């Protein structure tokens, strides 16, 4: 505060030196937050009488622009204006911010090209006061800045470039190359020429200047020359030819910077004809430097060039070997994998013979190298892999020889687990191929000891590999041929992500009365209470086994599962706290589930991770529910199964599952996208709250059963009750749930059910009519069955693309069904709830949705007679 105050005072000072000092301080001390405090004053100072102040003010504003582009965005026009300031110094200062602006967006400054060219011309013609000369060069820094700006503006723009040609050739002619600063302007001209639309005359001049640079004695000039050459060969590769010797000289130079620059140049001019020499040079340089940063860079360049221009496979492999040997672990892992793939697959167009030749040459070279001490880990991994895969392929080397080598590797690098793992797997492969080829296998003592050692390893990975190897060694020829086919690395492995091979198992267990799987997120909070677990355990297992299936159409089935949770921990309605998730996974792992189930579980988790937005997936079970009546029975099934009452319906359900899956998908995607906002979470919440009812006491369950059983008359009533409009399900759902759960009274519980049902159908309704006030009228109609059907019809008509109509007219549809359908209707019609809307709706919901408790007793009478 004090600083800002002082600066403000000083900026207003009469003494221009004080103002200058203040501006300097401004540059250094003012940050994003305090810019607004001084900005107006600094802008004002741009009109100050003293040019020194104006100059500094412009630069201070430039600084502001750098610090906070948004705060100073309105200054662009004033920068442009300052370009016409009558003091060249101020004009020069304004070039700095303009350069930044132009480099950010060249297209919007094309109109200034003419003025830039004019200024440059005037400067170059010595039209500025003598005081701006520097070593007889007129205002060199302004010239350089202008040339840089012109280079940006003229690149790829023929018309704009034409304006510059004359002035550029003027500068080429006039600049004296005896002074340092003259050369710097010449160099800048070359940069400009090479970046604007090419002009043969200018290029000629540029090439001439470049050769002068290269022939110069000074290292600085050589450096600039190399850099300029690098720019020019992009336009005309032939220019480099005449400078070959100079370039080679530079490459031999003791100056590190120059060498690097030259290598960069060589990298740019690499062709398939000269790649061997250049890569050789690069590797040679790479070996000699210690700087990791450059080593990495050069290594990656070598690899790139080798991949791009390799004249032969042999050469390529040797090059890669060298790179790995010297740059080792600095090389990107991907490069190693690429190399392995290349050796495995060959170069593509070549025939098999060439490929196998490539492999055998690789094997040979690796066997030579492998004995050397201290190889980088990554390289060893490649070696192990190649030896394992192709070591015995051409029959030149015996299996035991290669295995022995590999054992040596594993021993020599005993603290590198990755290398050991690669080595063990390679040994395993070698032996497996041996067995498959029908040869007798004698296990070397060192191999045996290695296996023994690794089976007791601390690393589970190594242990597993060791045991796998032991197991494989005991298999017979045929089995090994099956599990380790030759050249399997080339085969594409298709991962069956849907785990469809589990379908039959799932179906079978469903027929046996197992519960459909409930996705983890719906079971949120389930394991909060430890005591609950044991009770739930039995069901858990089955549900895990079935996970996959239900994941596709999960929503209604969530009910039976989640109801216990809600009972035991009614306060804990917060969506999925992280810890619980972990717990759950843990539990799942500890479950004595079948291996298949384990696989399903694994896959599920994967799925969850991939789709962070995955929740919507189960808000959309809608299509499935609406498309067939059988699926709608699911929830009821769940309940019945829990009580061991009925497995009758489960069969139908199963079939519906499978048939549905395929048609759900595209719809799902769309829904997920549109739902991403809050609606998905709403739908998620709802099922659990509504389903809480059945569990509390067996009597309630019976009653709910009664409801479903008495369907024809009871169900319409239910639908009616659901009319009132609390559209924001999430908001509404939570309060009601917490209210109703603690009460054991079945009536109250049913009330909760009603409410949630109301919630959902309300949503349905709002979506259809989009007029919440209408709902009130409808609500008053509830006692009578007729109107409700109409409303539902209306909804169905509005969301025509789903055949809800038939669904609704279906007389046996249960309340659960209504719920599911309604939930499905909502998403498409109102995408992404906007916050204000939902607030309003929430208000309405609280008014209407929560109050119906008073009316509900009547409903119960309707329901239960």
């Amino acid at each position: 505060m004090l600083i800002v105050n002082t600066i403000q005072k000083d900026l207003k000072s009469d003494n221009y030196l004080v103002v200058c000092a203040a501006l300097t301080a401004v540059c250094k001390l003012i940050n994003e937050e305090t810019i607004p405090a001084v900005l107006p004053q600094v802008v004002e100072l741009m009109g100050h009488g003293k040019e020194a102040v104006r100059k500094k003010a412009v630069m201070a504003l430039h600084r502001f622009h750098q610090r906070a582009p948004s705060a100073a965005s309105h200054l662009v026009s004033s920068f442009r204006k300052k370009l016409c300031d009558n003091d060249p110094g101020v004009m020069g200062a304004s070039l700095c911010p303009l350069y930044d602006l132009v480099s950010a967006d060249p297209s919007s400054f094309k109109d200034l090209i003419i003025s830039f060219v004019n200024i440059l011309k005037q400067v170059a013609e010595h039209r500025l006061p003598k005081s701006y000369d520097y070593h007889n060069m007129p205002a060199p820094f302004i010239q350089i800045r202008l040339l840089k700006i012109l280079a940006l503006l003229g690149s790829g723009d023929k018309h704009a470039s034409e304006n510059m040609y004359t002035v550029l050739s003027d500068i080429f002619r006039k600049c004296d190359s005896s002074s340092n600063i003259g050369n710097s302007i010449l160099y800048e001209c070359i940069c400009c020429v090479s970046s604007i639309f090419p002009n043969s005359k200018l290029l000629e001049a540029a090439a001439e200047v470049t050769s002068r640079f290269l022939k110069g004695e000074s290292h600085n000039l050589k450096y600039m020359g190399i850099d300029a050459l690098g720019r020019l060969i992009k336009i005309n590769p032939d220019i480099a030819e005449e400078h070959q010797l100079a370039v080679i000289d530079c490459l031999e130079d003791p100056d590190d910077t120059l060498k690097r620059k030259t290598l960069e140049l060589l990298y740019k001019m690499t062709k398939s004809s000269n790649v061997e020499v250049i890569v050789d040079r690069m590797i040679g340089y790479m070996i000699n430097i210690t700087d990791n940063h450059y080593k990495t860079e050069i290594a990656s360049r070598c690899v790139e060039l080798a991949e791009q221009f390799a004249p032969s496979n042999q050469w390529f492999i040797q090059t890669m070997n060298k790179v790995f040997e010297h740059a080792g672990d600095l090389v990107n892992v991907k490069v190693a994998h690429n190399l392995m793939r290349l050796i495995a697959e060959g170069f593509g167009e070549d025939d098999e013979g060439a490929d196998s030749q490539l492999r055998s040459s690789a094997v040979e070279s690796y066997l030579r190298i492998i004995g050397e001490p201290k190889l980088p880990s990554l390289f060893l991994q490649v070696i192990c892999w190649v030896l394992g895969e192709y070591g015995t392929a051409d029959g030149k080397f015996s299996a035991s020889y290669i295995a022995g080598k590999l054992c040596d590797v594993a021993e020599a690098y005993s603290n590198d687990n990755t290398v050991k793992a690669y080595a063990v797997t390679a040994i395993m492969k070698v032996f497996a191929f041996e067995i498959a080829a029908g040869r007798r296998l004698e296990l070397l003592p060192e191999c045996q000891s290695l296996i023994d050692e690794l089976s007791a390893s601390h690393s589970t990975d190594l242990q597993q590999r060791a045991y796998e190897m032991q197991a494989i060694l005991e298999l017979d020829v045929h089995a090994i041929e099956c599990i380790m086919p030759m050249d399997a690395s080339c085969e594409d492995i298709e991962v069956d992500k849907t785990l469809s091979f589990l379908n039959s198992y799932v179906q079978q267990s469903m027929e046996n009365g197992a519960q459909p799987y409930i996705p983890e997120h719906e079971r949120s909070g389930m394991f909060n209470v430890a005591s609950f677990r044991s009770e739930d355990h039995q069901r858990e297992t089955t549900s895990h086994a079935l996970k996959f299936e239900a994941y596709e159409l999960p929503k209604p089935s969530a009910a039976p599962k989640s109801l216990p949770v809600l009972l035991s921990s009614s306060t804990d309605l917060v969506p999925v706290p992280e810890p619980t998730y972990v717990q759950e996974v843990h539990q799942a792992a500890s479950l004595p589930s079948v291996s298949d189930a384990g696989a399903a579980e694994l896959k599920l988790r994967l799925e969850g991770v991939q789709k962070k937005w995955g929740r919507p997936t189960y808000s959309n079970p809608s299509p499935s529910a609406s498309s067939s009546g059988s699926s709608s029975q699911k929830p009821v099934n769940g309940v019945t199964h829990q009580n061991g009452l009925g497995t009758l319906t489960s069969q139908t359900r199963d079939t519906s599952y499978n048939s549905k899956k395929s048609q759900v998908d595209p719809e799902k995607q769309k829904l997920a996208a549109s739902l991403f906002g809050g609606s998905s979470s709403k739908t998620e919440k709802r099922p659990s709250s509504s389903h809480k009812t059945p569990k509390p006491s067996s009597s309630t369950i019976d009653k709910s059963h009664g409801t479903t059983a008495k369907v024809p008359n009871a169900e319409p009533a239910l639908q009616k009750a659901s009319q009132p409009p609390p559209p924001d399900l999430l908001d509404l759902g939570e309060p009601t749930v917490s209210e109703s759960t603690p009460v054991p009274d079945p009536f109250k519980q049913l009330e909760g059910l009603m409410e949630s049902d109301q919630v959902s159908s309300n949503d349905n309704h709002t979506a259809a009519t989009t007029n919440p006030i209408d709902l009130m009228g409808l609500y008053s109609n509830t006692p009578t069955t007729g109107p409700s059907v109409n409303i539902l019809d209306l909804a169905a008509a509005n969301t025509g693309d789903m055949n809800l109509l038939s669904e609704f007219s279906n007389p046996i549809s249960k309340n659960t069904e209504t719920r599911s359908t309604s939930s499905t209707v909502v998403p498409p019609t109102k995408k992404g709830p906007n916050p204000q809307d939902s607030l309003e709706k929430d208000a309405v919901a609280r008014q209407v949705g929560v109050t119906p408790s008073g009316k509900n007793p009547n409903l119960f009478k309707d329901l239960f007679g």
Partner: protein
Amino acid sequence: MIRAVMVMNTQGKPRLAKFYQYLPPETQQDLIRRVFAVLSSRPDNVSDFVEADSIFGPDSRLVYKHYATLYFIFVFDSSENELAMLDLIQVFVETLDKCFKNVCELDIIFSFTKIHTVLDEIIFGGQVLETSSSEVMKAVEEIARLEKASNAISLVPKSVSSWQTR
């Protein structure tokens, strides 16, 4: 833009360090050390440019000049020209020379405020402000006069003290 200006002696003792972007002091010291390590390993009569990507991050170059016992180092990015920067070092040194009549390391140590003033007249917020040493001299002299005057009658001491404390 110019990122930093450093002056250090051949033993690696920093005599002046000015960074035009905020960096914590520890980082600054580390950078200075690394720069010195690079410079001291370079033989004489090689080019004055160093690609400093590994020290200052991408797109950074370093130009230095060796005068007697001092290295003058400018670090900047691609929006500046290497040769021009070399000349800017020249301008800086010339100006100092005029200020102190044969500048030497001791001058820089004992009158570092003046050196900062000179530098501020040449480089402003990372951009080249003035390249004529006589202009710079004029400005510096004026400031010195003002400083003297203000010390005498204690006119606007705050702003002047800001010169000294920077």
